[in-house]
């Protein structure tokens, strides 16, 4: 579980996040949604520690991120997995080496054990025969799968996904959504997904936080979205005719 308490983030004179408080629950797919420039990426970067909050606190299973010392922080980082928008696979490594990387850096496992674990993770994301290929040789959907396999290699407690569906066709996007959702249940992880894909919201959104103008404007489940009277949320979610008709 990740708790965000009264989070503020400013850049020089510009406040990007204002008093954001929420809880991302364990074993659930928690979604952060909002328009471009609403502050959801900044919120995500604060969550994963790439940015430091101006004020407020982030607790990882009651452990305060800002109060942690270097070794504790290092250990916490090893409990995190991250799926980047562009996959962020290491170009110079093969698919298998990419998945083995966290195991090589942080475990004392033998080479054979690392290979076995990496192959297991690749099989889990339904990638069986791409071990020796380089990231440049595989498709966008396959890259996302490899990135997921790499993210779960160390059995993380927290999984962060930044726009996991961007650049994918609807069918592949749905498969990636379902994969993230299933893995969250299987590993009982706290998964936080940054997205503005409404299909993801409806399909896997067990807890949704809507950010608007740097503030938390709404939170609830995908079922509750349909009956919400929040104007900002409705303008965002039901922007297209299709979704508007679906709501009606």
């Amino acid at each position: 579980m990740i708790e965000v308490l009264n989070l503020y983030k400013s850049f020089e004179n510009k406040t990007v996040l204002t008093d954001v408080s929420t809880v991302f629950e364990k074993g659930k797919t928690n979604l952060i949604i909002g328009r471009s420039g609403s502050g959801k990426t900044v919120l995500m970067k604060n969550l994963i520690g790439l940015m430091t909050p101006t004020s407020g606190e982030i607790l990882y299973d009651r452990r305060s991120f800002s109060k942690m010392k270097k070794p504790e922080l290092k250990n916490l980082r090893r409990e995190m997995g991250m799926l980047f928008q562009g996959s962020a696979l290491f170009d110079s490594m093969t698919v298998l080496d990419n998945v083995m990387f966290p195991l090589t850096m942080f475990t004392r496992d033998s080479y054979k054990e690392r290979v076995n674990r990496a192959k297991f993770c690749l099989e889990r994301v339904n990638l069986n025969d791409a071990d020796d290929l380089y990231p440049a040789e595989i498709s966008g959907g396959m890259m996302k799968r490899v990135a997921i396999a790499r993210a779960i290699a160390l059995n993380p407690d927290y999984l962060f996904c930044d726009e996991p569906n961007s650049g994918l066709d609807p069918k592949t996007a749905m498969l990636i959504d379902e994969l993230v959702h299933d893995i969250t249940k299987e590993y009982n992880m706290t998964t936080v997904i940054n997205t503005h894909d409404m299909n993801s919201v409806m399909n896997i959104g067990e807890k949704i936080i809507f950010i608007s103008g740097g503030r938390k404007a709404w939170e609830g489940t995908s079922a509750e979205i349909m009956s919400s009277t929040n104007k900002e949320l409705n303008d965002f979610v039901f922007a297209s005719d299709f979704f508007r008709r679906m709501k009606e």
Partner: protein
Amino acid sequence: MLKALHNFGEYVLLMQRTFSVPERFGVFFRQMLQEIYKLGVDSLWIVIFISLFIGAVLTVQVGLNITSPLIPDFTVGYITREVVLLEFSSTIMCLILAGKVGSNIASELGTMRVTEQIDALEIMGVNSANYLILPKIAGFVLFIPVLVIISMFFGIGGGYLMAYLSSMITVAKYEFGIMFWFSPFNITYSVIKSMVFAFIIASVASYYGYNVRGGALQVGKASTNSVVMSSVLILAFDLIITNLMLGR
């Protein structure tokens, strides 16, 4: 001026992060060998090619310009040796390598930055500066003496070839010239100087590449800036080191 100080501060902080104990020595050693191959061995052909031709041209130029009967013919070999040993194989060769190796490092790290590969390392808890930059600096600094010695050999060899092929000077006189008043310390001086230059090339290029913000355009800019800055620093340090080691 303030910006220059700010950049210098950033560079020092980056080097501080870079020069820490590697997470895994086995991984570091493997990375370093790869860098030696990529930055050093891959530069061999250009070093040999340029040295051979510059050595030959030097012999022709000196031969053509020494017309006084008071200056002995072996001076051609003597001057070729001194220029190659003292300046060409270290300074000029490092200026050329600043273009090849420097732009390679800056663009590689810059691309890793804009494709979030460096962020991925940080989130995993890997000291990205230490993991990516230290093997490059260590590998290049360790291998540059090999390149310099090879350059010296082929530079003087180029002159020898010219003496053999032309009627400007006899081979015997050239041989006498290259052995005349030889001080082995000149080789030590050249090697030490080149190691400092190698550090400048690798660290400055790493600084520019690592700190890229933006996209492909900024990666190109970082690559150019790193070559310009390395060249300026190489010339400045050439003067300083020469005064320290050879000055009276």
